[in-house]
């Protein structure tokens, strides 16, 4: 009897030691979870923002790109954009022309006579605020990060300006700010949306192309937009899971 008691006590001690050791080892391993990058990170108790873009409504006025530059202090030179508009022209012979002079801010002039054109359309571009954003993944210091609302942001006081995230973004949405010397990009107007306002590009769009909304809210405009349209994302094979959803996106658009 006494022997059994000793045995069970011993077993209890071994089990406890194993458990403690296990927890200790597991907690040591936890940082490695960071390597398993492709995990779903929705914000269960708050908003999870995205953007719908209805290409059928875009008239290529470029006001979104212009407003973005004013709102976010983006340099006016035509090399730095948080958002821009591209014009695709498909000619009758099947060839395709793409332009984006000054990001579309000054509007577009059609180079080709109407009778040569089969179809022409505009595509507003912006940061896709990807669920699995490669730019955030590659930042060596963690200056590129994702907000709880799913917005890809930059900490300008922390960025070292290595340019690795610019290389890693498949969509060309980042640039190094020429005076601040740090990476800059679309924040979906974080300073506005956190106060309940709309992003500047959405606010100024005369035809309602851009639909900003909360993907976690079943009643939001964005969720309705996604239900009602057969949307596409850019470069789906990159598996970055963009949160910018296009209606009427043609395969030619990259």
């Amino acid at each position, binding site marked *: 009897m006494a022997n059994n008691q000793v045995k069970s006590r011993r077993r209890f001690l071994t089990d406890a030691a194993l458990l403690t050791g296990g927890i200790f080892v597991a907690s040591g391993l936890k940082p490695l979870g960071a390597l398993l990058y492709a995990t779903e990170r929705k914000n269960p108790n708050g908003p999870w923002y995205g953007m719908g873009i209805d290409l059928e409504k875009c008239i290529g006025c470029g006001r979104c790109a212009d407003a973005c530059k004013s709102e976010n202090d983006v340099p006016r030179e035509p090399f730095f954009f948080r958002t*821009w508009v591209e014009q695709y022209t498909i000619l009758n012979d099947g060839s395709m022309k793409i332009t984006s002079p000054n*990001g579309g801010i000054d509007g577009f002039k059609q180079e080709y006579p109407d009778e040569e054109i089969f179809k022409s359309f505009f595509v507003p571009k912006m940061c896709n605020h990807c669920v699995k954003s490669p730019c955030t993944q590659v930042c060596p210091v*963690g200056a590129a990060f994702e907000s709880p609302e799913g917005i890809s942001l930059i900490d300008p006081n922390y960025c*070292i300006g290595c340019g690795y995230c610019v290389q890693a973004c498949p*969509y060309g949405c980042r640039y190094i700010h020429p005076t601040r010397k740090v990476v800059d990009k679309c924040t979906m107007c974080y300073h506005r949306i956190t106060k309940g306002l709309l992003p500047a590009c959405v606010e100024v769009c005369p035809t309602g192309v851009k639909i900003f909304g909360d993907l976690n809210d079943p009643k939001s405009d964005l969720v309705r937009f996604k239900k009602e349209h057969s949307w596409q994302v850019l470069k789906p094979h990159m598996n970055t899971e963009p949160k910018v959803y296009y209606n009427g996106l043609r395969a030619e658009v990259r």
Partner: protein
Amino acid sequence: MNPHFLHLYDMLSKVDGFIYPNEIELQWGILIVLYPYITGLVAGAFILASLERVFKVKVLRPTYTVALLTALAFLLVATLPLISHLSKPMRFYEIMITPHFTSAMAIFGFIYLWYLMVVLLLEIWFDYRRDLVLWSQEKAGIMKRVYKILTLGVTDISPKALKWDDKFGYAITVIGIPSAFLLHGYVGFIFGSVKANPWWSTVLMPVIFIFSAMVSGIALVMFVYMMVNYIRKKMIDMICLDSIAKYLLVALILDFVLEGLDQVHRIYEAEESFQILDLLVKGKLNYTLFLFQWGLGMLIPILILGYLQMFRSNARLRRILYLGSSLLVLIGIFFMRWNVVIGGQLFSKSLYGFTTFKLNLIGPEGSLMAAVWLVVPFLILAFLFWLLPPWKRHPEGGT
């Protein structure tokens, strides 16, 4: 107008096809070309040194310390172009203090320090310890103090202690080989893991980087060894030089096969990006890839070194051809790095057009500055040769 913007307007006028508007400016210039180039030279030189130490290739003995000191001289410079390229260079230490572990770039500082402190400096110290002690006894004045400091106070040179030095040195070299592979394979991974860039994103990239590093490092040691003997007016150990040439040939062939495999794979798979890469290779990279990287830097040295393997020729001709081949290889690998780093940024990620790269003469990203970064390691090497002359070491056995 701001010269930076003027430069960009100039580039804007040279855009070919369609590119995303943020892509006009190349983020990584000549300094980032130098970074893998210099790091590769370090890794390659070290691997050559370890052939002698670990794999007991005794004929390479005359180049062992030359290779180690060459590796050190270049390693000391390796991070400088990288740091000076940052647009916020004063923040570089953030990589070490708060590394972001999912980033391929974040670990570089640690691998670099590991390699510098644990592998190279320790190995050289163990190898030189006996000489440092003896020099500190022989010399007078300030040099006596310098050597004394370099001994780090360990002055025991009894046979037993020296045996331990040898054991430690051997162990460090054994660790050093995978470390050298890690150092440069890792640099390859920094590029190879960028899925957004089809010119970089290949699983072969780290392997190609390792072999091209070996090629360039061996060629560099060969060049330095010949130059040192030329300057000191000493006879070159031809048996040693011949075997370095043999290793260089093997490394060149392996590198060529790997790069060929990469290209064949791209051509055969012909993915979405094939068309633009085809235009890139045949257009913007025409000279730097076909002529400099593959022609001058690879095929001609392979033919020369292969010829010398098969047919006997006199020592003088061999020396000239070896010198020529090593220089060609060094130029070729430079262009290999160029074609990777610059080539990968010349086409738009929309795959619909090209931007251009104009190398300025002056400025922190200019070619003069790049030349400075390439000359500095040789100055450091000259200093190391003066401080730790491999030819004035005390013969083993006697004190």
